[in-house]
């Protein structure tokens, strides 16, 4: 890729971030101080995680690259060499936003050894990025691709619903909103028939040339220059067929598409 990134780079705290202890007094009403702080930490814990995925361009780039690397592994395109400058394919992209030092240093430290000033409990990534409910993701894929929900192209997604986080409480399967490497891989594989479907091809004949329309449908917003640049760079070395597939998989597997 044109801009290889050191995946071991620990995330830096944005200048405009605050810890839970910095949340203004009075932010949480009618609670004891201890409870208030506890609530604030929990809120910060949950919500800062979302923000870190959404708000920081550098972190988004990291996640995008990690995700692309997983696509490459899942789609067999790793042989093209595109993955060599991306994050390791076995690296959980969620961890790219974790506070732990990734070069062997103790957790909670920066490369300089300084303690990371992060909210207590804010980086428990057990709940990490939260996927949209499975049926919502399925409906979104169908809509973007222009397929009915029962179309054969979606059969793999439907068949792997539990692997992809769906629930059936009657048999003890709870919703699982985690976005693990294995789940990304399963999602990507299940998406391949969708990306290859004639309807999809008709709707978006050439990707990334039709990226604007695709992004608008998939994300509900206009494509940005960053979107275009990142995608064009990522697939520049591929043939047209591979480009189409990879762009399709990348967008429909991106955090922006599968999570909120």
């Amino acid at each position: 890729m044109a801009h290889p990134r050191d995946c071991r780079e620990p995330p830096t705290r944005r200048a405009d971030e605050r810890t839970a202890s910095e949340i203004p007094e009075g932010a949480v009403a009618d609670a004891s101080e201890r409870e208030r702080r506890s609530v604030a930490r929990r809120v910060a814990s949950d919500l800062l995680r979302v923000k870190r995925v959404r708000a920081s361009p550098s972190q988004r780039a990291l996640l995008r690259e990690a995700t692309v690397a997983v696509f490459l592994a899942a789609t067999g395109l790793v042989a093209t060499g595109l993955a060599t400058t991306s994050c390791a394919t076995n690296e959980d992209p969620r961890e790219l936003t974790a506070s732990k030092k990734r070069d062997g240093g103790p957790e909670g430290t920066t490369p300089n050894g300084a303690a990371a000033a992060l909210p207590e409990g804010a980086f428990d990534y057990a709940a990490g990025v939260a996927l949209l409910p499975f049926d919502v993701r399925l409906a979104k894929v169908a809509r973007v691709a222009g397929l009915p929900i029962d179309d054969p192209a979606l059969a793999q997604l439907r068949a792997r619903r539990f692997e992809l986080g769906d629930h059936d409480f009657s048999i003890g399967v709870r919703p699982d909103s985690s976005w693990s490497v294995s789940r990304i891989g399963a999602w990507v594989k299940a998406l391949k028939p969708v990306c290859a479907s004639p309807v999809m091809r008709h709707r978006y004949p050439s990707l990334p040339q039709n990226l604007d329309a695709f992004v608008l449908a998939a994300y509900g917003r206009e494509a940005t220059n960053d979107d275009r640049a990142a995608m064009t760079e990522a697939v520049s070395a591929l043939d047209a067929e591979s480009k189409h597939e990879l762009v399709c998989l990348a967008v429909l597997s991106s955090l922006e598409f599968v999570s909120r």
Partner: protein
Amino acid sequence: MTGRRCAPPAALALAVSAAALVAQACGGVPEDRTNRRNTAPVDGAEADTTEGFAASDVRAYMRQLAPYFVSRELEPTELAKIDAARFAAIAPMLETWSKESGFPRAARRLIAQKLSVSGNRDGIDFDLPGNLAEHLVRSNLPLSELLTADYCVDASGSKRACDSGAPFQAGVLTTRAFMVSRASRFNLTRASTMLDAFACRSYPMPEAVEPRLSRSRLIPMFQVDDESGDAGLEKDTFGNGSACYSCHGQFGAHAQLFVRFDETGLYRADATGLQDPNGELGRATNGLFASHMLSADEARGDGSQMFGSKVRNLSEAAKVLATSPSFVSCQVTNLLEYALRLPRTTELAPEVLEEISASARKKGDPTFASLVVETFSHPRIVAAVANGLRGAP
């Protein structure tokens, strides 16, 4: 409103989103926009807090909601409406969403997750609660019918008889799905889930909300607490400590409503509510669960109390619950948790919940749609979320 500037910098993100919801003195309106107004009253009148929302804020806000309510992203026409009308676009758009085919599924999703019910097993249809929720939305019926419907709904959306065999009905509460998924000793989980999901309350509650049963009506283990010595009882530290009566004085009333439903969710008129002498504590014989009540007559009965009102059975209790002030505000809370992924521990400003509930009640018993519209078009909700989402792509 005091006008105190406690609205957070944008960077505090969603952590402050929640804080903005609970900040009593501030409107939660972002302060870093020079064209935004303070929410302090001006000459006794509330300032308009809605003009300051930028189109980008509203876009981010509606993008957050769309997948959860209509299982899709925003359409170009919707983006254009937002750009043109900003905050004013929100309520009409939510109204439009409420008529989409995907909207009722949001209600199903919410109730299925709240009660942990879905699927089919052992001949029990765990989708009945979700079916009912979806039916209420499709038919534009009050959400309170989740608790008061005297029918169930099958997978095709048609009404059908419910499955517990009880001679009374209480919406989702009298489905086997609810009964089985929440079966536990003394019926504690059934009672606590009912209170949590539909009143957003937990034990112990203020005495004013639910007066405790008198100690003498309860089995001895639930009579004790720190003050039990005052009643001539031996102090005890059984179970979770020394305050059994504090919670079980109220638990007992609600758990009694379920005493005739066995662990498979079937109604058993022959239930005794008495502890199985050879069984685990809290279990009666034949797959039933023990009552809190001391007297054999009370222990086997359907009757009890709900929020201080005497009721003959679970159906009447559910009606009290559905018409209580806490029902609507609790459903608002549930909506916020569902669509914003707010932690259950987030404290929401009571006046915001009250404003939303009052608005929703203006047109009668609130529906799921009216609650969604009123909740997610409230300026403080919008501000709180938009604050946190700023910076999203």
